[in-house]
Structure formats: C-alpha cells, structure tokens
C-alpha cells in the first residue's frame, strides 16, 4: 500500500513534464520555473528556443522568456494532472462501492444511469445552443450534472412506487431469492434494471434530439462523450472538490460496514449496521461525485469497472483496504492515461510525419485501450497462481 502512495506521488510530480508542448521543457525545468528556483544561463545554452540571436550566450531577457514559458507550461499541465487524479480516485472509489452495494461485479459508477442522463443533458445544452458560462463554468456542465442527478432520482422514484403497504418485510428468503437493496421492497437487481432502463430511455431521447440537430452539434456531442481532461475554467477545482470530497470520506469510512453488508442484509442488520442508511448515504455521495465527473469530463468509462477488480486481485476484497487501494490505483491509472492521451497524437504525428502534436486523444478512448490489456494480464496471472 505504501508502494501505491509512493507511486502516485511520483506520478503527480513527474506529470507536468509530460505533454504536448515541445521537448524543450523537461519536467525538472517546469518545476524549477514554477517554484522560483534558479535557472542559469549555462543550463540553457544549447536550447535553440532560447538563443534567439544566435550568439551562443543567453541574455537576461532570453532567460526570463524561458522561465515564463516554462511556468505557463506548468500552469497548463498541472491542473490536468490534479484533475486526472481527482477523477481517477472518484471513479475507482465509486466503482468499488457500487460493486459491493449492488453485489454485482459488473457494477460501475454509471450503473444507475448517471452517464446516460449526463449525456442527454449535455446534448440538450448543445442543441439549444447554450454557450454561456457561470463562474467560468459552461452551462453545458451544469446541464450534464442536472441530467445525471435527475436520472438517479427517477430510478429511486420508480423503486418507491412499489412500496408494499403494511408489513415492511417479505417472508424469509430462500437461496436464489435476492436480498433487498432499499428497504422498500426493491431488490438490487431491480435497481440495476431500472438504471439500465433509464439508460436506454436516455439513449432513445438522445437519438431523437440528434435527428433534429445539425452536423456540427452532433459531432460536438460525440466528441463530448469521448471524455476530455482539457482545461475549461479556472474555478472548476473549487466547485468540483466539495462534490467529490464527501464521497471520498464517506465511502472510505463506510468500509467496515460494507464488509458486514457483504454477508447479507440480515447478518449486517443483526450486527448493528443500518442497511438502508448505509445504502442511501453511499449512493447519494457517489451520485454527486460521479455526476460531477461526468459534467466536467464527460463519461470516462472503464475506470470504475476495472480498477476495483485490479485492486482486488492484488489486495483482496476487504473493503477497508480495497477502497483506498482502488482510489490510489485509479488516480495513478488516470494520470498515466492522460500522458498517453497527450503523447499518442505526438507519436502518431511522428509515425505519419504530420504535425499532430498539439491535439490529444480523448481520455475515454485511452482508458479503454490502456485498461483492457492490463486487466487481461492480471487475470491470467491470477489464474496461474
């Protein structure tokens, strides 16, 4: 576990040096520029970018220009790193929690329909041409957030509609009869089904909206759904963190109760776990955090599904270890995927001779392409162990 933390810290430190700008600014240069450490002329003598007048010495002006450029590179890249960290932690943690809460290894943070609702919200905003920004954050993000929350609310409203009047219990269940999720007579499987249904509904609505949209709008939503970590607004960190932090705290502190929950509703309740409160609290914080991720970055897939399994293969299924481990591995994973998304286009450009270095591969594409081989390797390793 300590290895994980160290690895993550190392990734965060190295990250500002990785990116789409030219190789002139190595990672140590950008840190020195940002931290105000001295950069001397001798360090820069062989860099063509600096020696403008070709006289093999570096003037104070050129030095100053170099420092400023390096610092601005840092200011572009470091927020990406922090965002990747936050998103990775959130998605992996929520994925681990949902896999436990739904008692289903295929559960993801988007299982209740947050991604579908978010995408629909974003599409509506695009179609209606909402381009304004509040606090620097585009209205599109608010629309996506609202869409995600609305879908989850509807899923639970559907569940409540089937409350049984009278006794709040069912006959003691035999094996094969799934345990209840919300103490309202709705099983975990039924909630999953409701989430999938709402997801399909949102897809249908999106198709409807696309039919009446222009080509440019359609491409905009397709591109949005691939996910993006590109910087958007200066204040977004302040808005995102209060939405994500409760999830981090609540889910990790619930680890013990979640362990009990895995033994079944009855044993957990008999040991003093308030099952419906646990489910409600976890779903609430996870929904807020995931909706925030979708609103900011689009639906980045695969992280919430696979990272918890990878963590479990290494650390076992004790939630007290699995949850923090998933968070750390998720953060590290997404930072690495971000590097890949920035470098992939540069690599492609180098291969084909075209200048593609300034664009990035959408993060959602990278998480899938990078994640699958890793997962397959670990799965095989486990089988041979």
């Amino acid at each position, binding site marked *: 576990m300590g290895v994980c933390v160290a690895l993550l810290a190392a990734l965060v430190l190295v990250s500002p040096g990785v990116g789409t700008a030219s190789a002139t600014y190595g990672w140590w240069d950008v840190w020195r520029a940002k931290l105000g450490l001295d950069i001397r002329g001798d360090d820069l003598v062989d860099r063509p970018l600096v020696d403008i007048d070709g006289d093999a010495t570096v003037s104070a002006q050129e030095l100053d220009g170099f420092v400023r450029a390096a610092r601005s590179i840092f200011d572009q890249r470091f927020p990406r790193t922090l965002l990747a960290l936050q998103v990775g932690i959130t998605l992996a943690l929520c994925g681990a929690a949902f896999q436990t809460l739904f008692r289903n290894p295929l559960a993801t943070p988007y299982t209740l329909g947050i991604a579908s609702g978010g995408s629909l919200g974003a599409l509506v905003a695009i179609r209606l041409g909402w381009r304004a920004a509040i606090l620097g954050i585009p209205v599109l993000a608010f629309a996506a957030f609202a869409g995600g929350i609305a879908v989850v609310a509807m899923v639970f409203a559907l569940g409540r509609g089937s409350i049984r009047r009278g006794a709040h*219990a069912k006959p003691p269940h*035999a094996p094969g009869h799934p345990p209840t999720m919300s103490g309202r007579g709705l099983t975990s499987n039924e909630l999953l089904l409701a989430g999938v249904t709402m997801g399909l509904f949102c897809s249908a609505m999106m198709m409807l909206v696309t039919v009446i949209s222009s080509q440019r709008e359609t491409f905009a939503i397709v591109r949005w759904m691939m996910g993006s970590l590109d910087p958007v607004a200066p204040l977004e960190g302040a808005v995102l963190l209060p939405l994500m932090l409760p999830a981090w705290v609540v889910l990790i502190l619930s680890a013990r109760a979640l362990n009990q929950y895995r*033994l079944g509703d*009855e044993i957990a*309740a008999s*040991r003093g776990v308030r099952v419906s409160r646990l489910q409600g609290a976890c779903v609430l914080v996870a929904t807020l955090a995931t909706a925030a991720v979708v609103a900011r970055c689009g639906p980045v897939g695969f992280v919430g599904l696979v990272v918890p399994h990878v963590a479990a293969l290494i650390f076992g299924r004790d939630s*007290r270890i699995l949850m923090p481990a998933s968070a750390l591995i998720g953060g590290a994973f997404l930072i690495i995927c971000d590097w890949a998304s920035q470098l992939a286009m540069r690599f492609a450009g180098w291969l084909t001779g075209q200048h593609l270095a300034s664009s990035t591969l959408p993060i959602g594409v990278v998480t899938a392409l990078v994640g699958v081989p890793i997962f397959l390797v670990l799965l095989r390793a486990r089988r041979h162990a």
Partner: protein
Amino acid sequence: MLEMETVRFGYAEQPDFLGPISLQVRPGECWALVGPNGAGKSTLLRLMAGLYIPSSGEIRIFGKTNTLISLRDRARRIAFVPQHAPVDLDFPVREVVVMGRFPHRSLGLFDSQSDYRIADNALATTGTLEFANRSLATLSGGEAQRVHIAAALAQEPNLMLLDEPTSSLDLRHQIAIFAILRRRADVDGLAVVVVTHDVNLAARYCSNVLLMHEGRAAAMGTPDDVIAPEVLAPVYGVAMETLTRAGGADRGWVVPIDEACAEPL
C-alpha cells in the same frame, strides 16, 4: 431476558400470519423452535432478532422494548445466524469470524489483538480453526456453516438465535453444535433459540421447546411435554412413535412411521 407479549405479525398477503405468541427466554435456557414448514419458526426468530417489527404486542430485551434499545446495544446482546449465510465469499475465514466482533468495535478501522484471540477461540470451538487462513469460498457448505456459527460465538452475545444451524452438517457435527450451545448455556448463561427439524437432538439438548403450527403456538414446555408422538403427530401430519433402546432408561427417539409418510400429500 427476552419477553414476547401477545406478539402478532403479518405480511402484506397474510396480515394474521403469526400470533398471538407470548413467551419468555431466560439466561441459560436453550429453546428449540420446531414445527412444519411455513409454520412461522423463521419469522418468529427474526422477530426476536429485531429484524421484523411486530404489528401488535411487545418484545422486550432485558426489559427494554424494541424502540428503546439502540441498534448497537441489541447487536451486542443478540447474535443471529440465518439459514443461508453466504458461503461463496472470497474472504479469509478468520476475517469472517472476526467480523462478528463488529458490535464491540473500538474506534478505528481495524480489529484488535483481543478480537482476533476471541475469533480464534470461536473457530477452535466449532472445529474450524484449521481453515482459518483459507478463503470461505473454498469450504464445503457444512464447514462454512460452522464458520458462521463461530462468528456468532465471537460476537459474545447474551442471546443466540440460529435458524437451522445444522441443516448442512454431518452427523457428528450436528450433535457437536447442539452440545456446544448447551454447554455455553449451562456454563456461561447464554440463552439460545434454535429453529430445527431434528426433534430428537432438540429433545436431548434443549431445555424448552416451542412447537409451532400455522403461526400459532401449538405446544410449549419441556422436551418431555412437547417432543412426544401424540403432540407432534397432529401438527406434522404424520403418525409418529417412540423407539427406545432395549432396557434403556433414556427418553428414546420420536420418529415418523415411514408407511404413513408414503401416503399422497
């Protein structure tokens, strides 16, 4: 310790399913709940555990009613072992048993040394210490059932409620579990309520028996009063007789007459 006063309970489809039932379980008593399928034994057990709330009547634990006792207090006093506890969990067996210490937990996420000691004792008692480092999923059904019983023992409750705890166990371990429970009752003052189909083990190891039929108490008393052919036969719907050892002074075994069972249902 546990008092039930004219308790009634029902489901949406059957509002008068259970009750009225009144009984008292005192420390050191070992109760058996017997009766045909669907008689309400598991339901009654869950009412005792606080998993269900009666539609009328009162349940008191150490004098405090359901609403007054805190969830954690109840968890410290009452352990519940359901009939179908999960057996395919990929958790180490020792951890599953230590999880029984949850109601007594201190602040902090991890268990203490004394918790693990208590867990190991419980494992030894049920004969599952050899599995301590294995995953629960690798155990057979009966071995896993003994692990869950060990977890309940580790909980160190005042009252243990077990729903058919011997259903998957082999002959030796069936007797062993009843013997363990009776010894705990006699020595530590543990109160035990066991739902079981084995009327003879119940008769040998339990101090009190409640026979249930269609949600009502058909008979309540000592094993001599209840575990008798004339009492059981009308309830179970099959003719029964007592077989005794030649020259034996013990109570013998109450068994159903096979030919009677072969009749169409």
